[in-house]
C-alpha cells in the first residue's frame, strides 16, 4: 500500500511539533495521574474521620482452628456455634455487620457463643491484604476491634487501593493495634498461609458467597431481603 508522503521537506519543523506534542501528552498524563493519586490519598484520609471517636473494647483472645478452615475462633466449647463467612471487601458483609455486628460482639464478649470468623479473600488482592491484617489483629487479641473498624471504613469500590499496607496499619492504630509485631505482620504478610487456607476451605463447606452464616453447622437462610437484627437474634436463639 502506498503510504502518504512523509513530511520530508520541512522535517526539522515537523520533528519539533512531534516532540512538542509528545512532551505535552507526557505532561498531561503525568499531572493527571498525580492529581488522581493525591485526590485519592486525601479522600482516604477523610474516610478515616469516622474512626475518630472509635472506642476500643477489652482484648479478647481467639484461636485459629486449622481443622475448621483456619477460622478465627472465639469461646471454643460454648454450647452454640456461629460460623460467619465474610470477605473484607464485600459490601453486603458490611450491611450484615452494621445490622448484627454489635449483637455478635456481645455474644463473643459475654462468652455466650462459639463464634468462628472465616475471613475470605475471593474479591481480589486487597481482600488478601485485609484478611492477612485481620489474622494479625487476632494474634494480638484485637480481632473484634479491628474487624469493626475495618468495616466502618470499607471503601465502596473493590481493589481501588484503599486496603493498602499503610491504610491497614492505620485502621489497626484506631483499633488499639500499635505494636511493632502487628505492623510487621501486616507489612510482611505473615498470615498469608492462613488466608489461603480459609479461602480454600470455601468449597469444603459449600460456601458460595458472602456473608454466609451457619448456626451449629446449619446454613442460615434469611427470610428478609435486608438484614434485620431481630431476625438474626431469633435465629440464634432458636438454634
Amino acid at each position, binding site marked *: *500500500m*502506498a*503510504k*502518504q*508522503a512523509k*513530511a*520530508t*521537506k*520541512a522535517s526539522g519543523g*515537523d520533528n519539533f*511539533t*512531534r516532540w512538542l*506534542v*509528545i512532551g*505535552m*501528552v507526557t505532561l*498531561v*498524563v*503525568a*499531572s*493527571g*495521574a498525580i492529581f*488522581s*493519586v493525591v*485526590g*485519592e490519598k486525601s*479522600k482516604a484520609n477523610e474516610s478515616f474521620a469516622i474512626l475518630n471517636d472509635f472506642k476500643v473494647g477489652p482484648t479478647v483472645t481467639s484461636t485459629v482452628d486449622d481443622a475448621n478452615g483456619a477460622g478465627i475462633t472465639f469461646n471454643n466449647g460454648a454450647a452454640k456455634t456461629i460460623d460467619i463467612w465474610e470477605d473484607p471487601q464485600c459490601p453486603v458483609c458490611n450491611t450484615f455487620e452494621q445490622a448484627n455486628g454489635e449483637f455478635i460482639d456481645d455474644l463473643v464478649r459475654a462468652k455466650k457463643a462459639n463464634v468462628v470468623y472465616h475471613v475470605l479473600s475471593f*474479591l*481480589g*488482592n*486487597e481482600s488478601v491484604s485485609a484478611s492477612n491484617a485481620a489474622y494479625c489483629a487476632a494474634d494480638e487479641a484485637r480481632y473484634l476491634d479491628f474487624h469493626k473498624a475495618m468495616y466502618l471504613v470499607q*471503601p465502596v*469500590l*473493590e*481493589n*481501588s*487501593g*484503599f486496603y493498602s499496607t499503610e491504610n491497614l496499619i492505620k485502621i489497626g492504630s484506631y483499633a488499639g493495634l500499635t505494636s511493632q509485631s502487628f505492623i510487621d505482620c501486616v507489612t510482611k504478610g505473615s498470615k498469608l498461609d492462613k488466608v489461603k487456607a480459609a479461602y480454600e476451605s470455601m468449597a469444603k463447606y459449600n460456601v458460595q458467597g458472602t456473608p454466609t452464616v451457619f448456626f451449629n453447622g446449619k446454613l442460615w437462610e434469611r427470610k428478609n431481603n435486608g438484614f434485620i437484627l431481630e431476625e438474626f437474634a431469633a435465629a440464634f436463639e432458636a438454634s
Partner: protein
Amino acid sequence: MSTLHKKYQPFITLLCRILLGGVLLVAGGLKAFKPSESASAVAAYKILPTNLAHLMGYALPWLEIALGILLIIGLTTRLAAVVGTAIMIVFIAAIISVWARGILIDCGCFGGGGEVDPSKAAEAHSAYLKEILRDLGLALCGTYLYFFPYGRLSIEKPLHNIEEQ
C-alpha cells in the same frame, strides 16, 4: 491506488480520526475524574500487580483524552494513531485474557468496571465479544490513519498536498 479511493481518502481519514479520537476522548473523559473507579476497574483484570494496575487506572484516562484530542484536531495524527491502535490491541488482549481465564468483569471501558455477578455470565460473555469487535474496528481505523494520516479538517498542514501541486 484507485482513483475512487484517492477521491474519498481525505474523508475516510477524517471519519477514522473522529471515530477513534471520539471514542478515546469520551472513554477517557468519563473515567478521568473517577480515579478510584478506574483503578478498581484495571485491578479487576488481575493482570498487573495491584500497584501498577492502580497507576495505570489513574494514568490511562488522561492518555485517552490526550490522544482523542490530537486525533480530532488532527495534530501528529500518524503518531497518535499508532499509539491509539497499540492501546486498542492491549485492550483486546486484556479482554481475551479475562475471557480465557473465566473471570467475569465489566470492562470498565467507559467508567464502571469490576466484577460481575455470576448470574449475569451470559451477558458478560456477549459483552466481551462486542468489546473485542469494537476495539478491533477502532484498531483498523488507527491502522488506516497510519497509512493515510492527512485528510480534511486537520491542523496539520498536509505537506503532500503542496508536493502534489
